[in-house]
């Protein structure tokens, strides 16, 4: 049952990524050129609604569908890892035009070369795991 719920949420996510065009390389390019409100509208409205929902969950006695307390793991305090890691991610996001959610959506949409991006991103994560202790965090 739970597995089915994850699958259905994933399907909803995949449809949304495709239909919103957030999985389009062109939309990412246009966003970084500041030539359309589309992506800013998507991210902005998601975050505003997200903030309201998270505050509601925290302030009201809302439990998960399975009766558990909903956890919000805080992110560890730091600057360098978020800034440096973020910049590297941004460089790749703009070049490949896809981030780790939409890249899987594009597999389903039938774009074979996105597999190159996915394999390289798994390798990139592996490379990070190999040298992470040498990086400022």
């Amino acid at each position, binding site marked *: 049952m739970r597995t089915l719920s994850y699958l259905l949420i994933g399907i909803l996510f995949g449809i949304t990524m495709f239909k919103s065009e957030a999985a389009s390389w062109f939309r990412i390019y246009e966003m970084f050129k500041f030539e359309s409100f589309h992506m800013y509208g998507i991210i902005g409205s998601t975050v505003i609604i997200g903030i309201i929902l998270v505050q509601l969950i925290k302030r009201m006695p809302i439990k998960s569908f*399975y009766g558990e307390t909903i956890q919000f793991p805080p992110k560890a305090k730091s600057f360098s890892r978020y800034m440096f890691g973020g910049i590297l991610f941004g460089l790749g996001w703009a070049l490949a035009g896809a981030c780790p959610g939409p890249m899987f959506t594009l597999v389903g949409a039938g774009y074979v070369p996105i597999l190159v991006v996915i394999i390289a991103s798994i390798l990139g994560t592996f490379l990070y795991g190999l040298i992470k202790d040498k990086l400022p965090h």
Partner: protein
Amino acid sequence: MDWIYEPWPWYVSGPMIALVMFLLLMVGKNFGMSSNLRTMCTICGAGKKADFFRFDWKAQRWNLVVVLGAIIGGFIGSHLMTVDSAVAINPDTISRLKELGFSSAGKTYLPTELFDMNAMTDMKSLILLSLGGLLVGFGTRYAGGCTSGHAISGLSNLQLPSLIAVVGFFIGGLIMIHLIFPLIF
């Protein structure tokens, strides 16, 4: 019923993404797609090479199911809910992209120069796609999250680290589009 084939405007898309994040919270999970890349490393045996990959990946199986869903959703969105997938970006953006050599701008969902089958035998396309993927995979794990984990989950929970990461995402993206693209395209 033709509206179903149209692209979704931002004011439909944004609330739908927020709904995805909310539903994941309600089934007791946190929205974050890039951790799947680490899980995939572990499944491929990366734990033999680095401690970072020695964790109980089975606890992350739920997220791999979300990935499977995202793939199926991509199929449904593109093949069943879309007739013409051309992305109507700004005409100025289209002309600039044409100058850079992207003749498919305004006509397709993804640039054919990078994403049609010919790209698989084109050295330049393969190098750029690989480089993009490497940076995404390395950067996201270094930053501890991607667009979903930081820009959506993290900002929704008012996390300062996520704001720093999102500022980083934009600095990187702007450098790529404005400074590096003119050199490589």
